[in-house]
Every structure is written in C-alpha cells, then in structure tokens.
C-alpha cells in the first residue's frame, strides 16, 4: 500500500514536471554530487558494516561512478519496490540497485548495459567426485522447492533419467543436507553458494562449477529520457570490465573465481 502511494505520488509529481530543462549528466557534475539508490538489505551487493555504514558491491560501484564523474557519492538507501519511485520522483540520480533489466521496467526507466549478472553455481560435497556441472548426472541432488534452480535441476534429472531430485523447504536445509552427505550436490546462486561456503556453518562442501542457466542480468537505471547519462554509464561499465575493476569487486564481495560474462553470444549489446 505504501509502495503504491509512493508510486502514485511519484507519477503525479512527474506529470506536473514536464520535460527536463537541462541534461542530468550536467546537473550531476554541476551539483558535485551523485545520488545513488542502493538496496542495503541484499548482501553481498548492499548491506551495512558494524558501524552501520553502507558497504557492498553496489556501494563500491556507485563510489567508482562518482569518482569517474569527479563528484561525491551519496548512497540513498531504498528497498526493492522503492527503487524506481525514488528515481522517478527525483530523490536519486541513478539506481545502482541490482535491477534486472526486464522489458516491462524499461517502459518506465532507462537501462544501461548489464553491469553484473547473477549466475548459478553447482556446490558439491567434498567426498563426491565432480569436476564439471555435467557430473551432476546420476547423483542425488536437491534444492529449495519452487525456485528457478530447483525447477531446472528437477528437469535435468528427468531428462537424464538417472539420479534423484529432492526438494527442501529452505536454503539452509539444502546446505545442511549437503554438508551431512545426504545430498551429493545442489545448485544455487553463486552469491549464496560462496556465502555458505565462507560462513563455515556447512563444513565439507565446495563450489564445483557454474550451472549453464541463463543468468539474471542486472543493469544501472536512470530516467528514461536521460540518454546522455545512460550513454556515459554504458561506457563506464565497459571501462570497469576493461580495467579489471569488475573482477576486483567480484573477488572482494562475492568470492574467488571468474565473474559472470556480461556479453550474450550471437546478439549485439
């Protein structure tokens, strides 16, 4: 309800705003401040440290963007549903908030090229011999019932005609079963897998390989008509990858290994 009220208020505000007078990119540079919407209850992308200061992949990404523009970054905390209203109502200049680039959202806001992609990883018990995701064949596997990865995994088991799929109530149960050897392997997002391995709560498990599922591509957002700003940010994302900063941030916040490829084979952009 609150979100709806905010959205309505934001849309009403825009309706009376009319066309922009100046380029947003100039405004940001002129004001010396870049306001980024970041979701801070979504580790490792955004969270707060022990002194309650914002931290995470998205926070660093915003700081990098501000540095490139030569301005100061201001992290504005938003929730997932408030990201777009905050942008549209002018509370923030850009959203660095792990926003999936859906066509539905693109009707409201402008997307850059993807700056990150949430991939899925295969995690296995140490005692099981596995080198690639294809070794899942014939194994006892499991995942949280109803999730994207569970549906994919169950489909694969059916396709192979061997092995067994077990659904679980929640992610913690899956990793507990894996750690205890009831499961040979599971599939989850890379971020969850790395966090669970690093937490030490589930001994005897390791991340084996990435699962060949379509990743969840996320992009930076700005107002739809701010092509100048979007153009700048596209180049910025390109530079982040080119200079190795993307890999560096991945290593810092997610874990060892290669960050997701941000290009899609067989198509431009």
């Amino acid at each position, binding site marked *: 309800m609150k979100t709806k009220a*905010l959205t309505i*208020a934001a849309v009403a505000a825009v309706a009376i705003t009319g066309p922009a007078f100046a380029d947003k990119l100039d405004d940001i540079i002129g004001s010396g401040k870049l306001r980024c919407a970041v979701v801070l209850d979504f580790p490792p992308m955004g969270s707060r440290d022990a002194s309650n200061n914002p931290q995470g992949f998205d926070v660093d990404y915003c700081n990098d963007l501000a540095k490139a523009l030569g301005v100061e970054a201001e992290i504005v905390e938003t929730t997932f549903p408030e990201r777009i209203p905050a942008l549209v*109502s002018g509370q923030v200049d850009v959203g660095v908030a792990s926003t999936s680039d859906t066509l539905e959202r693109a009707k409201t806001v402008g997307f850059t090229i993807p700056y990150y992609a949430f991939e899925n990883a295969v995690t296995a018990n140490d005692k099981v011999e596995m080198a690639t995701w294809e070794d899942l064949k014939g194994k006892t596997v499991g995942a949280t019932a109803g999730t994207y990865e569970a549906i994919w995994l169950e489909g694969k088991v059916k396709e192979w005609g061997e092995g067994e799929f077990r659904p679980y109530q929640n992610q913690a149960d899956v990793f507990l079963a894996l750690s205890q050897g009831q499961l040979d392997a599971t599939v989850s997002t890379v971020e969850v897998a790395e966090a669970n391995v690093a937490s030490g709560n589930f001994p005897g498990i390791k991340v084996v390989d990435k699962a060949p599922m379509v990743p969840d591509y996320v992009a930076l957002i700005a107002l739809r008509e701010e092509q100048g700003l979007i153009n700048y940010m596209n180049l910025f994302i390109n530079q982040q990858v080119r200079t190795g900063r993307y890999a560096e941030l991945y290593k810092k916040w997610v874990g060892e290994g290669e960050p997701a490829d941000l290009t899609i084979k067989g198509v431009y952009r």
Partner: protein
Amino acid sequence: MFDTALTLNDFIFLAKGAGMTIFVTVISVALGTVLGIVFGVIRYQLGPVWSAPLMFVLDIFRSIPLLIQLVLAYAFLGTVLRLGLSGLSVACMVLTLYTSAYCAEIVRGGIEAVPLTLRRAARSLGMSWGQDMRHIVMPLATRVALPSWIGLALGVMKDSALVYVVQVTELLKSTQILITRLQEPLLLLTICGAFYFLISFPVARFGGYLERRWSND
C-alpha cells in the same frame, strides 16, 4: 541477560537517530506554533467567510496524509523548482506547515474560549486591541489551549517518523537499519519504543505541571 549482537556503537547510532527526531520535532513545533498563532488569530479576526481561503489551504495540510505531503513536496521542490534543498529542510518545512494547520485551530478555540464580555470590558476600560490580546486573551487562551497543544507536540514527534521518505535518518529509520543488519526486531523495537517514551514522557509531565500550576492562580 540477553544474547544480542547489539553493540555500544549501535546504541550511539540509535541515540543519533533520536537526536534527529528531537531536532526535527523542536524546529517544526516551534515554527509551526508561531505560524499557527498567526493563522489562528487571522482566522478569528477575519471570521469564517474572509478566512475561508486560508482555512482551505490549512485543511489541505490536515487532510492529506503526511507521507504523501512529504514525497510530493520533495519531488516538487527538487525536480520542478530545482531548489536542491536537503531532505531535512523539506521535512522541517512540511512538518512546520502540518503543525501550524493543527495549531491554528487550537489557537482559534483558545481565543473563542475567552468570554466576549470580558474582552468588551477590557476595551471599555480603554485598552487597545493589542493590549486586549496581550493582557486579557493570551493568558486565558493559553490555559485552555495548553493540553491540546501538548497533545499536538507529542503527535508531531511521533509523526516525524515518516520523514524517512525524504532520506532523514531519524529514530525509527535507525531502528529499521539495525533490524535489517542484526535481525533482532523485538529487542530493537522495544529499545526504540523506550527512546520515544523517554522523549515524550518529560514533555507530557511538564505540560501536566504547567496545567496544575496555572489553574491555581
């Protein structure tokens, strides 16, 4: 006693939030009361017909939920007028007008509670309108209006929790930040409630004290 991850650092963080709540409330109530007195006197002097435009504007502030007022004001001042005001200034402005709208009615009620015969007697003795307002109406009206005004001030303090929508980290927002990080909602909300109580209790008691003191003379 409690098994909690709450540190001294977090307590300071909460206290800072409480400080922000107090700051926003004090500014809004102080300015809102001054404005409210002006509006209330104008409303009384002009009568219901001539003050209708003013009352209509004040009714807007009283009828639209504060959350929507804050979002709209922030968007309007920021994107349309391009004033580049901070969220804190917008929050204080909106809360001030919100307080003044309620305060105007309290002031009008207070003035109306002073018997007209008493005021006529004052004017017959040669007092000017200003003297009448200053020496006759003000002391009596204040006594009548005080309890409602205390209620208003405490109400505004609690309503100030909504200013989080314009990026002001006050007490409730600080609590929510800690809840997100520590996942201990019950303990944190209890502490937050205790903070609110600590702020409002002395105000309520002071109001009660003034009421008792003033009723004796």
